[in-house]
Each structure stands twice: as structure tokens, then as C-alpha cells.
């Protein structure tokens, strides 16, 4: 039903646009793109006017990145026409796209870690003098761009030495090396601070006024509201609707994105804390990313740990299972002290860690779901007897868990690589169900997961909790920890800054601990996601 309405709305709008063709910078019609086994885009139309910010909105896997990659020339579309400044463009390459003024700023950084900021800026577009690099000219131009953008960057630093926010700045600077007519920003604020993001918005406004068209990919409602002129919503490779930013509410946008009514994102979790299962006492790590931190987690409650990126919260729970070297302090499971923890010994004690980087640390992508699930429990009788694998029992057990987790598609013999982000997370979680686990350590469980899968993961945590386990939730997603935690710890610069309970678990309170010593002014403006 919605699809029909959307098509009608499109027709009326494109008629309107015909009258202002001169304004049209980019016009894509009927764009489709298939990857092996996946339809990434299906007859999508998209256009961009000069001096406009057009937001692309959609869940992960909706086709946003495929679309911007086609526009940036990374790969061609299978069908459709690509008109830029009134001319039809074919065989676009990344190089060609930049030459005609299309500058992409990707979320996955296109930076070479071992090269300097300056070398990265000019990569593929070096200034040469008779075939030799002209270092002086490049240095001067690099300084000029960085000054223009008002970034705190030094051209001679290697990119590998920079923080993520600084790398993001390099990425943005790269887009400004040539004259920009069409700027693509893919979640550019994901790793910027609020003040840096404001600077970027100022820049976007300036560019808009000078007639640059901007395609802006983002999940953040607040900034979409702030800068968008039009919003195009994609879902499952289809264009759902293009709307004027002023005409639409947040709820409508989320409903367009997910294709269903979103009641409450966060389930009502029933915390019934009983005994302490995990105690961490005065733990410091050898690299000082965690210093003198104590906390505990009880059965029957979700213990949240909040903090900014790099505050040490991930390192803390990684250290519990022995993935980070500990300098001093004690870890106790059910009152028993554990010396020299390793992931294997902690799993046997019923403590399981679920890494945030699912691809790098969590899953063997080329192997089927079944093997990934049973990986941590092959010593149990359900999976092996006398060192011989019990394949049938394994299949039955894993299939049961997969059904319970609503894995989609529910085929446990498929390679994990062919599943979406949310479903990969479920595969990882399934590991916690293959054996008796009483302490769940979740490290950013919903990072890169779409809204639908998020809800399922939250529901799952709720169900888990009802079985009397202890859940520790480490997350940079503030609403997530605020809504799900019974007690919330806040970490700040490798120290434990606060333990909040009850009514104290609210946004201003947490933010005041985030920015304890610095940027006190920023706290006055709470963020909504």
C-alpha cells in the first residue's frame, strides 16, 4: 500500500521538478544494482539540486552506500541513467567523478594509514613538476585547505597516529582538494564531537550558499532536522519516498524507514537483582586505558557502562575475560578470585564476552552459522563425545537456538557472510545459548545494526535476564544504556566517574560525568538520537 502511494507522490514531484531543470545537478533514474545473491538497489530514482542538502535515510542494508558508491564512481549501476549537470554520464570512475566535481567523503575511511595527512590528501591527484612530486606546492595547498576548513590538523602527521575524529577531518579535507560541485557526506559526524559537528554544519551551510549540492547520509534525527532540505527514504533497496524535511516528523521518518509502526524501541525490563556474580576490584591495565576501576554486576539486572569512545569501557570488560593484559586488581566470579583469566577459562566459569567488532573478532564469516554457534561449546556432550563431533545433535541444538533468536533466513548451514549485520549479531549471541552462561558481557551489541534488529536484541536481553543471569552492557549509544540499565556506571578517561541508580539514570546526569573536567558549556545542550 505504502509503495503505491510513494510512487504517486514521486510522479507529482518530478513534474514539479521539470520546471526547474536548470537547478538540477544530478538526476538518477531507474538505478538498479545487483551483487551476487543480493539486490542492493531496485529501480531507484534520485535527484539533487544545486545548493540543496538531500538526506539519504534508511536502515543498514537499505542501499544507501550502494547508491552513493554509484554516484562516486566506485562501481557502475546495472541499469538506469545517470545525468549530471544535464549530461548523461557513463563509465564513471572514482577519478573521473572527482574530475567533474563529485567529491565523496566515505564512512569507511579511504585513507592510507602509513602515509601522512598531506600524502593522503593528494593521493591520486599529486601536484607534479616534470613528473616529480612538488612537495612545496602540496604542503602549501594542504595548509590552505586545512585553514579554510578550520580543522586542527597537521599535514606532516601520519594518519595511523591520528584519532578517529582527526581521520574524519582528513577525509573531509580530501573532498575539498578540487573544486566541489557535489559533496557526498556518509555519516560524517559519527566520530566528531558536538563542536566539531557544528563546524561541519557551518561548512555545509556555506557550501550550500555557493551552490554546491550535498548528499548527506545520516541516522541522527537531530542533525537531519537541522540541515536537511529534502529526505529520501530507502528500504531494502527500494526508494520509499522523497519528502520535504519540513513536512515530516521523526516518527513518520522512522516508520518510513522500518516499514512498520514503531511502538517502543526499548522493552520494559524487569530487574530483580539478587547475588553478585561478578566483582571487579581496583583493576588497572598495563596500557593504563583502565586505571583503578571497581564495579560489580548482580544476577537479574542489567549493569550498564557508559562513556565516550576511548574512555576504557571496552578495555575493562575485555580484561575480565583476559583479552587485555591486567596490571593489578582482582576479578571475582561468584566470590571466587580468578587469576590470569583467559577467554576459555572464563567461558567454563560461565562468563561470555560478545565483541563489538563482530567481523574481526566474533565470527568466522566463511563458515556456516552452525559451526559459528557451537564453536565455544564443542567440549559439551551436546556437541561431542570422546572428542568426536556429534553432528546431528549439534544441528538440532543450533537450529533450536536459531529459531528462538528468529534468525533470518533460518538456514543454519549458510555462511555467516551472507547474513545482514543484525542477523550476524544474533549468530554471535547464539553462542551464549549453547552452554550454561551466567554472566553476559556485551560490548556495543547494537553498533551497525538496524532498528528492527535492535529491538529484537533488546527483547532478547530482556528474555535472558528473566532466566536469572547477569548482563553487563557496554555501549556508546546513550539512550540504550539509559533505558536498559538498572544501575549505570559512567567511565571517564580510564577512571570510573560515577555509579548511577534509579532516577539518577538520566541524560544530563550522565553527560555531566562524560565532560566532567572540560567542555562544561557543551553539556547544556543535550543530544537526542
Amino acid at each position, binding site marked *: 500500500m505504502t509503495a503505491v502511494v510513494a510512487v504517486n507522490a514521486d510522479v507529482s514531484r518530478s513534474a514539479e521538478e521539470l520546471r526547474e531543470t536548470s537547478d538540477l545537478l544530478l538526476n538518477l533514474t531507474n538505478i538498479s544494482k545487483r551483487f551476487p545473491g543480493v539486490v542492493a538497489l531496485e529501480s531507484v530514482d534520485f535527484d539533487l539540486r544545486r545548493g540543496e542538502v538531500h538526506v539519504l535515510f534508511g536502515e543498514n542494508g537499505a542501499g544507501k552506500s550502494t547508491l552513493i558508491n554509484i554516484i*562516486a564512481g*566506485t562501481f557502475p549501476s546495472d541499469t538506469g541513467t545517470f545525468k549530471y549537470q544535464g549530461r548523461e554520464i557513463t563509465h564513471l*570512475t*572514482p*577519478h573521473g567523478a*572527482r574530475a567533474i566535481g563529485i567529491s*565523496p567523503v*566515505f564512512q*569507511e*575511511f*579511504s*585513507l*592510507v*594509514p*602509513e*602515509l601522512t595527512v598531506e*600524502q*593522503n590528501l593528494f*593521493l*591520486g*591527484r*599529486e601536484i*607534479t613538476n616534470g*613528473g*616529480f*612530486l612538488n612537495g612545496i606546492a602540496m604542503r602549501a595547498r594542504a595548509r590552505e585547505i586545512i585553514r579554510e576548513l578550520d580543522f*586542527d590538523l597537521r599535514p606532516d*602527521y601520519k594518519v*595511523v*597516529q*591520528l*584519532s*578517529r*575524529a*582527526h581521520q574524519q577531518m582528513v577525509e573531509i579535507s*580530501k573532498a575539498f582538494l578540487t573544486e566541489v560541485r557535489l559533496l557526498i557526506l556518509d555519516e560524517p559526524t559519527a*566520530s*566528531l*564531537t558536538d*563542536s*566539531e559537528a557544528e563546524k561541519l554544519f557551518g561548512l555545509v551551510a556555506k557550501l550550500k550558499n555557493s551552490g554546491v549540492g550535498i548528499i548527506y547520509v545520516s541516522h541522527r534525527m537531530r542533525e537531519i532536522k537541522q540541515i536537511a532540505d529534502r529526505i529520501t527514504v530507502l528500504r531494502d533497496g527500494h526508494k520509499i519516498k522523497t519528502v520535504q524535511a519540513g513536512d515530516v516528523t521523526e516518527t513518520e521518518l522512522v516508520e518510513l524507514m522500518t516499514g512498520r509502526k514503531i511502538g517502543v524501541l526499548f522493552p520494559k525490563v524487569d530487574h530483580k537483582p539478587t547475588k553478585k556474580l561478578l566483582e571487579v576490584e581496583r583493576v588497572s591495565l*598495563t*596500557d593504563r586505558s583502565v586505571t583503578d576501576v571497581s564495579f560489580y554486576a548482580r544476577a537479574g539486572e542489567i549493569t550498564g557502562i557508559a562513556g*565516550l*569512545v*576511548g*574512555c576504557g569501557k571496552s578495555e575493562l570488560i575485555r580484561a575480565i575475560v583476559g583479552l587485555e593484559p591486567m596490571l593489578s586488581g582482582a576479578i571475582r566470579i561468584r566470590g571466587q578470585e580468578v587469576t590470569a583469566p583467559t577467554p576459555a577459562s572464563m567461558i567454563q566459569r560461565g562468563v561470555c564476552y560478545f565483541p563489538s567488532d563482530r567481523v574481526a573478532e566474533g565470527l568466522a564469516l566463511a563458515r556456516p552459522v552452525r559451526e559459528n554457534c557451537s564453536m565455544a561449546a564443542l567440549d559439551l556432550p551436546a556437541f561431542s563425545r570422546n572428542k568426536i563431533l556429534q553432528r546431528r545433535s549439534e544441528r538440532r541444538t543450533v537450529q533450536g537456538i536459531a529459531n528462538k533468536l528468529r534468525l533470518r533466513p533460518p538456514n543454519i548451514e549458510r555462511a555467516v557472510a551472507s547474513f545482514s549485520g543484525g542477523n550476524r549479531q544474533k549468530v554471535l549471541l547464539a553462542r551464549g545459548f549453547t552452554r550454561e552462561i551466567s554472566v553476559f558481557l556485551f560490548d556495543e551489541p547494537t553498533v551497525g545494526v538496524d532498528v528492527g534488529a535492535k529491538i529484537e536484541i533488546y527483547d532478547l536481553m530482556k528474555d535472558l535476564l528473566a532466566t536469572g543471569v547477569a548482563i553487563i552492557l557496554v555501549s556508546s549509544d546513550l539512550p540504550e544504556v539509559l533505558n536498559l540499565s538498572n544501575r549505570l556506571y559512567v567511565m*571517564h*578517561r580510564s577512571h570510573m566517574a560515577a555509579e548511577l541508580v534509579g532516577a539518577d539514570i538520566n541524560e544530563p546526569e550522565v553527560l555531566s560525568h562524560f*565532560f566532567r573536567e*572540560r*567542555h562544561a558549556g*557543551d553539556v547544556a545542550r543535550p543530544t537526542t538520537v
Partner: protein
Amino acid sequence: MSDDLTGDDVVPMGTTVAGRFVRSYNAVGFLPILLTGLVVVLAIFLPHFLAVQNMLNVLRSSSYLVIIAVGQMLVLIVGGFDLSQGAVVALTSVSAALVMAGLKGTLDPSVVILIGVLVGLGCGAVVGLVNGLCVAFLKISPFMVTLGTLSIATGFALLLTSGIPIYGMPTQFVDGFGRGLWFSLPSVFYLAGGIVAVIWVVQNHTPMGRYILAIGGNMQAALVSGVPVKTYLILSYVICSVLASVSGLALTAQLGSGQAVINAALTLESIAAGVIAGVSIKGGVGRVEMVALGAILLLTLTDAMDLLKIDPRIQAIFIGFIVVLAVALDELSQRRAARV
């Protein structure tokens, strides 16, 4: 997130002893200091080390390795491997010698030498092109591709000679070039020096050098930045093999015969020289002047062991240990860097 932006975040790596060691290992100064130290120690404890004949030997044998190692470095930088270098040396030696011996007397010696050299370099170019095309277009792992071409090139070399050395090359090639001293230094030394200089300029002052580093550092980034990735991948493999051919020609000239079995350890040594010099086997890092020093260091060690009359089989064990140690240090430094 403002915390990430403080100045002290910019300086990476720990302040532990290991961290400091790794950092100095990566820094400019380590290898030259080590080499100087080694030479001083050898000069004090081994009286024959500084003898003119011995120094010439070290210079000559390192020069062959420098040429090969520089090529290997380019392939290592783009994130690859070339196991076929030793086989290319053999194939070059055999084909160049066959052509020169066959044409001898029919044409002017300089023309004969020119044709022989071109045939030799052609062998390298063909093998390099096959390696490069397979890696760039078929996306086969460099390890498997070059293992395959290693076998193919060795097979051809043996087939052409039946394992018998080929004599009868023009004396100008053997005595004039191969065994000749120019300004009292081995001719191959100038050849190696020239190649290092050219590659240094390419690496530091041309887009090509930048692109090769970028491809190894982050291939996707290079691609979206508009670097012609495939072209430079192939080019790296071709240059690598052609340099192996250059070394093969110089060796053939020195030996005075084309041989299908020339120093089988060359490939390993070329990789060893690279990793000792801090070239990352994961790609993206490597400096030609360091690789040259690495090759000289390796051959100085070998020479010292020769002077000490250490059994060559034990020397092989020792070199193997050095390679593993160097790669382990590289891995360690990468792991620390990843923690930033």
C-alpha cells in the same frame, strides 16, 4: 568524544621498554647503527675482515642481493610476495648464456651481448607480467602465483640446459663486466648503486612511489582515490622480476657460465633483507635505502661466518632464525600500532 582530541593522543605506542625498542627499530637510526657496530666489531676481532679482497667480496655479493631485494621490496610494499625471483635468476642466466654462446662469432661481440642481455631481461619481464596479471586480475594469492611460476621457470631452465652449465659467452661480458673492477670496485656495485638511486627517486619524488605505498597501505583507499591500482600492481611485479634478471645477468657474467642452479637461497635472502630493513610483510611500508643496508648487513654476517669457518649448513639455520626474528618484530610493532 572531545577527549580523543587532546594532543597526547597523537603520539602513539606505549612507553614500555618493548615499545621503546620497537619504536627505535622502526626509526631511521637502528639499521645503520647495527651495521656500523657489526663492522667495527668484525674489524677488531677478525683481522682478515678488512682485507681488500674480503671487502671486495662482501661488496660484490651484497650487490647482487641488493638488486634483487630492492625488487622484492616493491612487491612486499604492495602487499605481495615474489617467490619466483631465484628461478628468474636461473632462467635469465641460462637463456642469456645460450643466446650469447649461440651467436658468438656471427655478430659483433657488443651486439651479441646486447641481444643476450635483452633476452635475459625479457625472461624476467614475462615472468613478472604473468605474476602481476594473475595477482591483479585473477586475484590469486601472490604466494601461490609465484610458487607456480617458480616451478615453471625452474623447469624451463633445467629443460634448456639439461642441468649442464653453458659456457662460451663473449669475454667482454665475462672479464670486462662480470669480473671487472671499475675504479677498483666491482662493476656490479655501480649497477646496484644506480638501481637503488633510481628507485629512491621513484619512491620519494614521483607519484608512482606514492601509489605503490598507498596500494599496500590500503588498497580500497587507493582505489577510491583514483589510483590505477591494477597498473601499479602489475608494474611492481614486473620491476621485481626484471631486477632479478639484472642480478641474474651480473651473476652469469661473474661466473662465466649460464647455470640452471644458481644460489637457491636468493629468494629467501631477498625477503630477509627486506624484513630486516623494516619492510612490512603486510604491505605499505618500506624504504629502499634501508633495504640496501639490510642486504649488506645480511651478507656481512654471512662473510663473518665464512671467516670464522662456520659450517654453511649452520649458517643457513642462522639466517632462518634472523628472518623469523625480523618478521616477529614487525608483527609486534604492528600489533602495538593497532592499539592506538
